[in-house]
């Protein structure tokens, strides 16, 4: 188990290095950062001095490794535009994004697991078809469009929910639904498929042959096994969602790191973009790692592999 964990962690680390390298080269293709830093008034000499100071005149791999070295120590540099440490900017904003992400994935799970389970228990029933309809619609509904429609209906027409900002929990209701709904189809399909498989499995038959109560069969024996892959997928989706929060945060004016990345891209503020890409990637990598470990815990067979 320890060896497995260590091996997986090493691969995860390697992935982050490659991701950051790719982003670094990509973002340095886009614009001359010296011009961005210099601002509107910079003269050619200023620009040249900035270039020297930041080391933009060095080969890109050298720049990357010096960036990486600092990043590993938690120093992501300074925002070109706002002239503040990137770490401060992100740490001030990541809470909003995390809150949104966690709420959204919880929403997705709360909707998809019961729905998927009920659908699996009564395949081809009305509720199964309803669940399938939700899944098919959810997959085809552009998130941002759904978000706008909610704003029109619940924000403007009915004035039920606040539209923008993060002052209270009520502010998170619409963004949570908009973002969470996006993950619901995948999670629900997986719950349903897993549940159907598990309910037809031999050990459920055994449990029934033992005369266990339906509740015990469903919750103790079936759900736990069916939920293992759902948990893994939810972890992966959580990573995706953080990335998807860019649109949602922009629409609902939640000033999280999704919005920050959007704002930074508009300003070619490379250190911020790089740091956020790395953070999103880290989340994904760490979450998949955790999901695997959690799986190993929930499903004792896995760690043996």
């Amino acid at each position, binding site marked *: 188990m320890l060896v497995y964990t260590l091996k997986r962690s090493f*691969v995860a680390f*390697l*992935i*982050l290095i*490659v*991701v950051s390298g*790719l*982003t670094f080269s*990509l*973002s340095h*293709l*886009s*614009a001359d950062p010296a011009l961005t830093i210099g601002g509107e008034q910079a003269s050619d000499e200023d620009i040249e001095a900035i270039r020297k100071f930041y080391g933009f005149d060095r080969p890109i791999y050298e720049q990357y490794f010096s960036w990486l070295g600092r990043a590993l120590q938690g120093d992501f540099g300074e925002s070109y535009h706002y002239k503040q440490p990137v770490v401060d900017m992100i740490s001030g904003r990541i809470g909003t994004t995390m809150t949104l992400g966690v709420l959204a994935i919880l929403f997705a799970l709360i909707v998809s697991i019961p729905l998927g389970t009920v659908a699996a228990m009564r*395949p081809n029933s009305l509720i199964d078809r309803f669940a399938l309809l939700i899944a*098919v*619609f959810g*997959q*085809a*509904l*552009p*998130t*941002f*469009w759904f978000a*706008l429609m909610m704003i*029109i209906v619940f924000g*403007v027409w009915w004035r039920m929910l606040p539209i923008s900002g993060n002052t209270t929990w009520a502010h998170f209701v619409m963004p949570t639904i908009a973002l969470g709904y996006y993950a619901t189809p995948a999670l629900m399909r997986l719950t349903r498929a897993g549940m*159907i498989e598990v309910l037809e499995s031999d050990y459920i038959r055994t449990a029934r042959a033992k005369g266990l109560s339906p509740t015990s069969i469903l919750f103790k024996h079936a759900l736990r096994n069916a939920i293992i892959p759902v948990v893994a997928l939810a972890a*992966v989706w959580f*990573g995706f969602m*953080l*990335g*998807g929060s*860019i*649109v949602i945060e*922009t629409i609902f004016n939640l000033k999280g790191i999704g919005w920050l*990345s*959007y704002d930074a*891209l508009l300003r*070619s503020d490379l250190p911020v*973009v790089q740091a*956020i*890409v790395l953070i*999103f*990637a880290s989340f*994904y*990598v760490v979450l*998949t790692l955790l999901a695997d470990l959690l799986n190993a815990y929930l499903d004792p067979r896995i760690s043996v592999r």
Partner: protein
Amino acid sequence: MAEAALPLRRQQTAEEILEPSPLSKLRKRIFKNYSFLIGAIILILILVVAVLAPVFEALGLIQDPYAQDLAKRLQNPFWHEKKVDPDHVFGTDKVGRDYLSRLVYGAQISLLIGFSTMIISGSIGTVLGVTAGYFGGRVDMVVNFIINTRLAMPVFLVAMAAVVAFGASLWVVILVLGLFLWDRFAVVMRSITMQARDLDYVKAARALGCSPPYIIVREIFPNVLSSLTVVATVEMANAILLEAALSFLGFGVQAPTPSWGLMLNEGREYMFFSPWLLALPGTCLFLLVLAINLFGDGLRDVTLERER
């Protein structure tokens, strides 16, 4: 020995008599599969509209999607109770271009993006997946690493960064999406190739000393084709949605291209007062993606036997 001992007087069993021919079985499964049917019908309709758009224009059914008329901007669609311009059934956009024509040509753009992205990402993913699945071992490890690296990248953010780096245009968007959306192809192709590799006739071909490319193309590829098609539909839908989201934030296709995503971006400005400018392209996008998804779902059910 057994046959001599108990000579077989074989009748056709009921099962054999009842067993329909494979083709009629397929036909039956297709027509019993409503999602496949609905998906296919919508998809074909959109496809026909997209392909015939220039013909429609020539026939005068629709207009030039680029022809602007500032004096006739933001005209109401036909169902609006206020003043309606008979020349523009769905009204006009903010520079006075015919909205219906733009919606019709928008189908071309969306399908173009979906198809091209799917072709690019499908090629990359399939090559990676099949290679990994066929050779296994180190190769598989490397490919797996590449797949995981790709999955770790926040697609949307990196795509936005790439668009900023290379400038926004239709082909940049297609290329960027194509270079990012191959992961599912690779994952699925890898596992199916692994299964196919162990099939008896593939083993036989290997034992006969056939070259790997020959085996992959002749023996393995036919096996993975149906899954490939299913993944392709999913990724096509995905690409169309992502393009829309990118265009929506202004990091996608450039004006005046009649892309539905871009139309959503433009129409959004009027969402509270002229909601159709948002609702129409949104509905088109929704229908197209829905159709592709239904088609893909149905295709999976039709080609791969349901386990239940």
